């Protein structure tokens, strides 16, 4: 197994390198440049002279050909320097770091809630399979899955921020903080944050919840038909023990790979929703930096997302090997 893992990790590095190359080239060849949106350049009274233009270009690193610029970026990466953001004139690592928490604040709770709720719902659906209440729940979950998250976001905003405004049920429309956030006490701040978080987290959660619970139910249905479950029933074991102790752990293999594969969505799944809710997270940063051609930030974000994706796949593979006893006993 060690050999397999080493090979996977090496191939992963190669893929990562290729990804950075492709994205770098793609981004550099996009028409438009960071100079178009630089405020200094947009002043019609003071058009810069040719030397000024050259100076600005040099400052942005735009005077070098693509492969040289890429090599410079790689060299910086090796010492941990991701470059300076064009827009905010701060190191890219700082810019991304300031936004990571906002995104994680949404995605981590939603992932946790989705998993924590999906397991009981999935198991309950297996037990009550075919009965009326399970069928209603199944249909509702199915329909929930069909609603795109941004549509649900808009509907929820419409309901809670517009229709129910000036009532006790009102929730803020967008943003992360109230305008007086800095002056609030700690408890008020927490309450305000929770209020702002509620709708986005719901939108993030329900899709995964619907999918995971149906996933668990489908796998459990298959496991329940196995002979060893029949034996357990014949032995007289109770329903709970059969489900929890015998059946469920045999559905863990695919479920656990799902866990690994959902890792990248921690940082990446948010672009559209963060725009709808005006949430200052990494998705919004991505959007903005593509619009303003902020190359270092784009590269830094793509790098982190790709690393997470590759790590997630690796993690899923390792977990799979861990959870499947057929592999460890080889």
């Amino acid at each position: 197994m060690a050999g397999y893992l080493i090979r996977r990790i090496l191939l992963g590095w190669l893929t990562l390198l290729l990804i950075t190359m492709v994205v770098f080239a793609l981004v550099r060849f996009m028409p438009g440049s960071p100079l178009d949106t630089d405020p200094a350049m947009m002043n019609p009274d003071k058009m810069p002279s040719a030397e000024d233009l050259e100076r600005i270009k040099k400052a942005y690193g735009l005077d070098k050909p693509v492969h040289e610029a890429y090599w410079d970026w790689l060299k910086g990466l090796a010492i941990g320097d991701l470059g300076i953001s064009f827009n905010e004139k701060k190191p890219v690592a700082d810019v991304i770091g300031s936004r990571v928490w906002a995104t994680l604040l949404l995605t981590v709770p939603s992932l946790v809630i989705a998993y924590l709720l999906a397991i009981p719902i999935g198991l309950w659906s297996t037990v009550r399979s075919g009965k009326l209440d399970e069928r209603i729940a199944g249909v509702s979950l199915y329909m929930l899955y069909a609603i795109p998250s941004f549509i649900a976001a808009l509907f929820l905003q419409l309901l809670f921020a517009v229709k129910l405004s000036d009532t006790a049920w009102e929730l803020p429309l967008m943003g992360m903080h109230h305008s007086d956030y800095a002056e609030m006490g700690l408890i008020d701040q927490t309450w305000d944050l929770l209020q702002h978080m509620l709708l986005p987290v719901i939108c993030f959660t329900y899709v995964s919840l619907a999918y995971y619970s149906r996933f668990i139910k489908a796998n459990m249905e298959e496991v329940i038909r196995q002979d060893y479950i029949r034996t357990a029933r014949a032995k007289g074991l109770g329903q709970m023990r059969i489900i929890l102790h015998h059946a469920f752990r045999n559905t863990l293999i695919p479920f656990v790979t799902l866990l690994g594969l959902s890792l990248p969505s921690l940082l990446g799944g948010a672009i559209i929703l963060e725009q709808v809710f005006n949430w200052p997270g990494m998705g919004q940063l991505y959007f903005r930096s593509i619009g303003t051609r902020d190359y270092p930030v784009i590269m830094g974000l793509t790098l982190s997302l790709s690393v997470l994706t590759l790590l997630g796949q690796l993690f899923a593979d390792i977990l799979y090997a861990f959870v499947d006893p057929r592999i460890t006993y080889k």
Partner: protein
Amino acid sequence: MTDNNQQPAATKEKRSPGFWVLAWRRFRRRKLSMLALAVVMCLSAIAVFSPMIAGTKPVVCKYKGNIYFPCLAYFNADWENPIFHKDRFRKRYPENLRKKDPESWAIWPIVFQDPFRPVRDGEWQDQDAAGQWVDRPGNPYHGGLPSELNLFGTYKRGVDVFASMVHGTRIALLVGFVSTGIAAFIGITLGAIAGYMGGAIDMVISRIIELVMCIPGIVLILALIAFIDKANIWIMMAILGLTSWTGMARLTRAEFLKLKQSEFVAAAQSIGAGPLRIMFRHILPNALAPVMVPIVFGIAAAIKVEAGLSLLGFGAPPPNPSWGTVLNAGTSNYTEWWQIVFPGIAIFITILAYNLIGEGVQEATDPRLADPKD
């Protein structure tokens, strides 16, 4: 007593109708899937007949002795007959037809609204109780709220939402089919080559698949969109197709790896069939079954992504009416709830229908559920 000398009647084995016919029979048994298929057919009908359902151009008219079909201009602006330019219609058909040719007649669409522009006062005339011809008020009527003139309300300074959504059905379904078609073409071809050829080619293609898979989809789409200066709905569909083929490639590759070992492949190779023929004439028809499922779900996903991009402002460029552009208008003013509710419901129903069809296809093509009754 049976006569032992008599030959038993030779049992003629029924010729199997084939995989796809059997799958279709299994699919047909699920009521929900058939219902979903009916919904998609309805939507397709709405898309095809959209100029006849809502528009300001006559479906068919007789003008100066000739018969024209002006409504087809909604499909392609070049199909507008030049005579209407020459006679200075300026796209206002009702009054001009009446004024310029008293002998003209026209059959109008069911709802007289336009997906691209607000209808002005007096463009259409109704007969009131006294039999007098009265000018119909233009958009926005009744403050833009849903009314009997604007079934779903108006958006963007008076464009009718109902007409936009009817014509937007065309874009939604087109985007779904075309982009998934492109993705399927790329994915199946690459997967087939990788699976059958194996070795170095397989390694290279697998790396490419992993590469495209790891770059976040939205990012790739936004980056590719930034490349095109003349935003065009067909280029959008190509971009969507170029970013969603990886799942199908992996599935096809797995199927080809499996089927490469089959006997019929060995037989074909032994009589000298070349790799291209084996891949696409022999293996591919057998490998298609599992790929149908991601194709159907891919159509739903493409519609969702297109709506999301239009919501952000990146999708179908104006003046194309897409469900997402109505949503986009809705986000600037939440009190105009009809701009969010109606497209939202439409997108939800479409995706639900495709999900149901996909599930039906999944169960119909699953070999493990093969019914001995078939």
